[in-house]
């Protein structure tokens, strides 16, 4: 059982390119998903029949079908309706649409978690709508949002690996290229596993720092009856 470090050293540029693409795709699609999620969550909360129907259909459809299937469908449907995209663009679009449905549920949960009395008290003091959202509602949502959104972000970063099946040149695809040439699956998959692990660990640590700074009010009472720390179970694999 020998580990070919020389091979890894030689293939390193390939892996670096791969993870750069992974990070690039993640950044764009996760940002877009977030905005899609906000829009869909607000639609879901309007209580008017048509927006709610659209929002619920989108959420249930996306969440109850596997990502790979969505990718394949997009890959084949889009050209059929005349939309020609590069693999990477298609990948970003798919991941954004996929993530949007999950973000929507997170954000809706965060909005619903704020007691109505908060908005009323702020109104009673004479604050305007936007001031209320910015200064009272949104800061409170962070306590709920940061753990759940981080979880989701980590899952979506891992899901970029699935895009390798439609030849998006991200990290997993690069590993397959390297393994295809050098017949070294052990080295190849081990290295990329460690790289994904490293990337996710960095993101998770950054999120913890952010939570530490924005949620002081949740930490002051360790035994407070108001437990806001959310059990961190991921939404996707």
């Amino acid at each position, binding site marked *: 059982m020998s580990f070919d470090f020389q091979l890894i050293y030689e293939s390193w540029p390939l892996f670096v390119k791969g993870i750069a693409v992974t990070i690039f795709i993640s950044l764009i699609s996760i940002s877009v998903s977030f905005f899609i999620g906000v829009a869909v969550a607000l639609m879901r909360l309007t209580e008017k029949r048509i927006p709610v129907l659209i929002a619920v259909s989108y959420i249930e459809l996306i969440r109850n079908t596997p990502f790979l299937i969505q990718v394949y469908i997009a890959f084949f449907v889009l050209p059929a309706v005349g939309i020609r995209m590069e693999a990477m663009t298609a990948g970003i679009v798919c991941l954004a649409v996929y993530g949007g449905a999950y973000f929507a549920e997170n954000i809706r949960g965060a909005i619903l978690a704020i007691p109505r009395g908060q908005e009323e*008290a*702020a*109104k*009673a*003091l*004479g604050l*305007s709508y936007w001031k209320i959202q910015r200064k009272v509602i949104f800061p*409170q949502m962070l*306590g709920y949002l940061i753990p759940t959104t981080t979880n989701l972000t980590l899952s979506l970063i891992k899901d970029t690996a699935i895009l390798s099946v439609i030849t998006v040149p991200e990290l997993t695809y690069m590993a397959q290229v390297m393994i295809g040439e050098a017949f070294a699956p052990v080295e190849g998959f081990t290295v990329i596993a460690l790289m994904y692990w490293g990337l996710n660990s960095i993101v998770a640590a950054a999120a913890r720092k952010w939570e530490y700074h924005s949620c002081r*009010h949740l930490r002051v009472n360790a035994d407070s009856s108001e437990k806001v720390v959310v059990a961190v179970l991921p939404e996707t694999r």
Partner: protein
Amino acid sequence: MTQETETLAVKMEAVSKWYGTFQVLKEIDLSVKRQERIVVCGPSGSGKSTLIRCINLLEEYQVGQITVDGRVLSPEIKNAESVRQEVGMVFQQFNLFPHLTVLENCTLAPTEARGTPLAEANETAMKFLEKVRIPEQSGKYPSQLSGGQQQRVAIARSLCMNPKMMLFDEPTSALDPEMISEVLDVMIDLAESGMTMICVTHEMGFARQVADRVIFMDAGEIVEQADPETFFGNPQSTRTKKFLGQVLAH
């Protein structure tokens, strides 16, 4: 603006409100003079909370007219913020902003809604926190305070906007018994300083001590209103007598 409305803090004329098909306020007529202290009592569902929530436009109403501090409130709630800045409200559930310290809770509205400079807002806040007797808690978060302390902060928070009147929606109903008196003491101080107050409460001792007028509501109507002596000593309506019998029994 007639002579009469100039001296009135609140005037409600034939105000009716429905939730769907259920009528929660039935042709309410009410006049509150400046510096008057009113206590509103009645069984659950009588509409007393809804009544005061109409005064600061947290609720809309369909029929009638409400004039607050000389301004007519239109049923479509236009320009609500400027009205609400003049009317303070204290809630049963306190509704303090958990992500802000006590001091920040008090300075948020003056700085954000009125543009008061922070230093001035801080001074005002400390002044009112002293009035409610908890200046030393100003750096703490609401979750670190007891219920009674939180409610007193809520009172200070509303006072920091220098409102013309204060509305209280069952301020002590969510408190443990031993904390009720600390909040009532603050409310008594406030009443004696000349603030116009409308309180929805079950605390009859408070009503007897402080109120100029006690109003009994049932099923959306004002059934009876009188000064405390008359109200408690010689209630007119059978419904009032029944309610008082239940409330004063213990």
